[in-house]
């Protein structure tokens, strides 16, 4: 698989350019754009979740809880205070991270499966809360009418011409496509930088051998909390975007199935492999859409796709339990300092 990514090389810039241009071309299709935006949401979720099992070796079975917290924070703030998306995002992220810390503080000292079980219980409680606290969330009726994202640059435009009023309200899929692109790119860059840093190395050490990590000077609890806070913050970010994109929220959008789906994306792409998370998200979402179309053609109801999903995951785990890509901390092998070191080492051999 590493050969494939090496082959892509310059080709990937071409693909990137094509992807950026796609919505503006005449062949662009609204449905396809919608699916692509959905893929982007899950790419962010997968990258966020990857921090836990992928970098720290901690299984989080309740990721949807933070996704839901981010979404409902964004939705409620929009409906109640009509705040701008750009103000809501940091608020939702902080709220998500805060709940990560609240949940993590008493539970991150636990070993293995216990943490997984607690996160699962937490996410179920979140759904229960969203369903039952009708005074706040309208429960199962959901939150309709959330305002779409808007860009208000009138303060800038008036600098050029007092009559100009640069206000743009997002409509249709295309603006969300570009916003999603930006979101994925930012989180990707953040993850790559963290991976090749003191923080990322500390996380990887915790994953590899917690006892050795502690003896090497890493405060396990502190770094696990940081991981959980960053992970839940990213989940909340995806939730906030999701809320202002679908413009409607209901508690049954945040069930355990979502946690499972994102976990599968992370495992498929290889634990700890950031690029793998992107691919895992793209593959599983596309699979869902393909199934949604193909199954009725075979005479089966569209709901059967969950059955097929389950079966496919079982089969993939059977034959490729480690995912499709090896989990090599890539950026630690390609940063400028390492390339420099490589040269120095090569010079030693010849010199």
């Amino acid at each position, binding site marked *: 698989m590493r050969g494939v990514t090496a082959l892509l090389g310059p080709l990937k810039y071409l693909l990137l350019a094509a992807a950026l241009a796609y919505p503006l071309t005449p062949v662009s299709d609204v449905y396809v754009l919608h699916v692509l935006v959905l893929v982007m949401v899950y790419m962010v979720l997968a990258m966020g979740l990857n921090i836990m099992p992928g970098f720290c070796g901690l299984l989080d079975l309740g990721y949807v809880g933070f996704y839901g917290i981010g979404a409902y924070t964004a939705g409620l703030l929009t409906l109640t205070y009509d705040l701008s998306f750009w103000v809501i995002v940091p608020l939702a992220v902080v709220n998500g991270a805060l709940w990560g810390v609240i949940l993590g503080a008493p539970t991150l000292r636990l070993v293995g*499966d216990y943490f997984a079980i607690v996160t699962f219980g937490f996410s179920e409680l979140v759904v229960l809360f969203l369903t039952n606290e009708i005074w706040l969330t309208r429960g199962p009726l959901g939150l309709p009418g959330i305002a779409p994202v808007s860009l208000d640059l009138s303060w800038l435009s008036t600098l050029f011409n007092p009559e100009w009023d640069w206000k743009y309200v997002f409509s249709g899929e295309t603006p969300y496509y570009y916003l999603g692109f930006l979101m994925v790119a930012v989180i990707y860059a953040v993850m790559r930088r963290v991976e090749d840093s003191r923080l990322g190395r500390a996380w990887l050490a915790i994953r590899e051998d917690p006892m050795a990590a502690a003896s090497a000077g890493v405060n396990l609890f502190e770094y696990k909390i940081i991981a959980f806070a960053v992970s839940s913050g990213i989940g909340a970010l995806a939730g906030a975007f999701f809320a202002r994109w679908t413009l409607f929220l209901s508690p049954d959008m945040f069930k355990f199935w979502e946690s499972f789906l994102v976990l599968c994306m992370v495992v498929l792409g290889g634990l700890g492999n950031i690029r793998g998370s992107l691919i895992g998200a793209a593959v599983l979402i596309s699979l869902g859409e393909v199934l949604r179309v193909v199954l009725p053609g075979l005479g089966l109801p569209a709901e059967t796709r969950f059955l097929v999903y389950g079966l496919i995951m079982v089969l993939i785990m059977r034959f490729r339990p480690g995912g499709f890509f090896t989990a090599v901390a890539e950026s630690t092998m390609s940063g400028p300092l390492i390339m420099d070191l490589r040269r120095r080492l090569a010079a030693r051999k010849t010199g």
Partner: protein
Amino acid sequence: MLEQQLVNGLTLGLIYALIAVGYTMVYGVIELINFAHGEVYMFGAFLCMTFLTVFGAPLIVAVLLAMACCAIMGVLLDVVAYRPLRNAPRLAALITAIGMSIFLQNLAMIIWGSRPLPFVKEALPAFFKVTALSFGEVNISWMQMTIYIVAVSLMILLNLVITKTRTGTAMRALAQNRVCASLMGISVNRVIAFTFALGSGLGAMAGIMVSMFYNTMYPTMGYNAGVKAFAAAVLGGIGSVPGAMFGGVVLGIAETLGAGYVSSPYRDGVAYAIMILVIILRPSGLLGRAVTEKA
């Protein structure tokens, strides 16, 4: 009123206990949370109903057949899905378990539809409706009485199997140290399969009793009950069979009282809250043993 709640809580609790022992036994021998166990419980109910309606079998036959089928289903689950992953990373086995759970849930939806179905009232013996015991304002019907008797008998039987038979002892040995157990000549795979069969049979009985008592069954019932039974197993100490029984009863009573006196919509939340609190405050559960890692 309180007495009635306690009686109902006990009924629910015994059912949870029957499911919980399945989780705890499997976790004890292979350290896997068998997510698909709830679906076996659900299939127990549906299969029993199918045997009654489609094959016209008498109640006892339908019940025993359903239990046997589910026991086989449990073994198949192990052999087909979990055994090949015995040495794979634990996350892979967990995902497989969840995948099988989703598969089975949706399979049931395709076979029997996703709407709740009632139990076959006509198949129930007439005396079930008769009050067996009555004190104060509390009535315990013969159906409830039968549930108590059957559930408790099964648990006593299970305890005997685990403590007195060779296979049961082998199970306990496996739970302590799998490598050593196999070195002692224990056929690991066979014992694990037996564990699945045992847990699944009991789970099926729980499903049948629930569908009988509440007169309803639906394909997602395994998910709800499964999570709660798992919480019960954690409460009692995951890996401990007496713990699972104890935890089941405690959870059933706690949930019923909570729903009755504190908050009904949050009744499911009682299980989750208990699970989280137990893990934070006493991870080894009420009856389990704590484990430390060697340097």
